[in-house]
């Protein structure tokens, strides 16, 4: 037998919390029954929110599809108001933009290559701009923002002393201990101080300091400049007639170039100190012997090239940090992305530059 009409009487509160339950119930009735019409009575409703109103609109549409006529009755003014904000047109309008679809492998490889190439071009361009700005500052020292330089000397340098010292000390300690374990088999303990000081000064000191500075300061530069870009502060600088690179990047680059060689010396000293702790406690060397042994293999040439290397690392770290900062376009996510990229790219460049130095110095020394 076909029932002519289903009467649904609603009472109580209808909101987001119980929406799934009551629409499910009504839908089941519609799907299971054979009605010609449905009347939904709203007289007992005490509260109705817009999401549930939308659900009733949806039910009306479902009914229309099945050829059932649906009536919503006894709506009070409040409920009528809520139904009035639901625009049928808005519900069916297709999005103006497609959702980001998954792109094929080939396409993504292509895009990655293009962006890598663009990245390289923009870095080289930035280095050029930076050099121009640096030369300008050299010719017009009055334009240098001295206070900023000092500020970043403190941030990147002074504030970094404890961690650089600690890591240097531990590296010296570990190296001395590991080499002592090997050397004692041959009774060659006396060479431990030379090994530690040689490795620290030539390679590990500059490299480790640079990596620490990249993590501490390169990231800070990128985040700082990136946030300024997002806040339109960089645009403000440009419109006030300042060159953002000269204003923001030059002080950071100069400060880093000043600071990193000093930090490197500091790390070297702590490394030797760390080695000495092992030397004195486990190798039965006196402090005096340890120091003379340490100095024996070190030449002035090594120290000078190590400091030059540190300065080059510093320039790379600061330049890439600033450049990544300027690449930020909008939003918090961009700042995070380019800050990460600043550190990763800086460490990569440091290692590349270090390899170039190793080969170059070998031939220079043979001259």
């Amino acid at each position, binding site marked *: 037998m076909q029932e002519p009409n289903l009467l649904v009487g609603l009472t109580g509160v209808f909101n987001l919390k119980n929406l799934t339950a009551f629409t499910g119930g009504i839908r089941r009735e519609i799907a299971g029954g054979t009605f010609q019409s449905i009347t939904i009575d709203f007289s007992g409703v005490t509260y109705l929110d817009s999401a549930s109103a939308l659900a009733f609109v949806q039910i009306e549409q479902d009914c229309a599809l099945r050829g059932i006529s649906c009536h919503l009755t006894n709506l009070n003014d409040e409920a009528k108001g809520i139904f009035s904000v639901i625009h049928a047109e808005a*519900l069916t309008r297709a999005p103006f933009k497609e959702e980001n679809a998954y792109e094929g492998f080939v396409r993504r490889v292509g895009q990655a290559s293009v962006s890598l190439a663009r990245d390289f071009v923009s870095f080289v361009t930035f280095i050029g701009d930076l050099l121009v700005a640096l030369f300008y500052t050299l010719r017009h020292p009055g334009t240098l923002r001295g206070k900023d330089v000092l500020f970043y000397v403190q941030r990147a340098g002074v504030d970094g002393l404890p961690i650089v010292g600690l890591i240097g000390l531990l590296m010296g300690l570990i190296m001395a201990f590991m080499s002592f374990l090997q050397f004692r088999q041959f009774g060659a303990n006396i060479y431990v101080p030379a090994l530690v000081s040689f490795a620290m000064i030539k390679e590990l000191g500059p490299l480790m300091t640079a990596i620490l500075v990249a993590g501490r300061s390169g990231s800070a530069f990128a985040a700082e400049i990136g946030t300024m870009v997002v806040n339109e502060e960089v645009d403000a600088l440009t419109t006030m007639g300042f060159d953002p690179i000269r204003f923001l990047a030059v002080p950071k680059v100069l400060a880093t170039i000043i600071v990193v060689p000093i930090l490197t010396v500091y790390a070297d000293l702590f490394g030797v100190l760390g080695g000495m702790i092992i030397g004195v406690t486990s190798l039965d060397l006196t402090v005096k012997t340890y120091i003379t042994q340490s100095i024996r293999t070190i030449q002035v040439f090594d120290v000078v090239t190590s400091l030059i290397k540190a300065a080059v690392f510093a320039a790379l770290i600061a330049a890439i940090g600033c450049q990544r900062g300027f690449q930020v376009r909008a939003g918090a996510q961009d700042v995070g992305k380019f800050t990460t990229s600043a550190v990763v790219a800086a460490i990569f460049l440091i290692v590349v530059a270090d390899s170039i130095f190793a080969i170059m110095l070998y031939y220079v020394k043979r001259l």
Partner: protein
Amino acid sequence: MEPQPIITVKNLSARFGDNVVFENVSFEVYKGEVLVIVGGSGCGKSTLLRIMIGLLKPFAGQVLYQGMDVTAAEESELNNYRQNIGVLFQSGALFSSMTLGENIALPLAEYTDLEEDAIRRIIKMKLGMVNLAGYENHYPAELSGGMKKRAGIARAMALDPRVLFLDELSAGLDPITAVELDDLIVKTNEALGTTMVIVTHELESIYKIAHRVLMLDKTAKGMIAEGTPLELKKQATDPRVQSFFLRQLPPATEKQEFYDN
């Protein structure tokens, strides 16, 4: 019908360190009304709003919502309260890494058990309510200032809040966009009966949207006037209120200060 208070603010005082922002502010927000808070820069409008939405603890006083003191509530109670309110921040505060649709879906997915399909329909409806139908896959960065504000309202309305707080509603918008926004506020208030607490400076929009106005003042460190916009314009005796509603510089003292600077 007697107006029912939905939020009661009692003897509220706010300080930052030794700096007293305001003292002994008391008022009620009635169900279904649009209450506008006005006042010069630095008078503590935004601070008041932040205390009312539970982001900031006051120095003293209470904010009661259905008998619960927001200023002393536990985090779980406060979360419950926050599901009943919506907030539009000054700059919209849309999540820049998400599309508009995802921005609106966020509270819906977190606090309800709706299916994805239902959420998608609600997103469409909410965007339709603020005249942004079709923009669900756009990112906030692709929108103009007025659109961002409207999208912010759509997100604030996602859970059909009982009370909507709007900070600096029309700041930085062109007059036409501001008028559109006012219309949207009036329409939403009439259709859904949502109670609204709005901070704004725009005199024209105050006349258009406000049922009641509260005025705070920096020198008085508190509330100096309360009433309908027309009452305040016509009957206010306080020179600070008069100068705000007549758009004039306050008499003598501050004018002098203005030129001295």
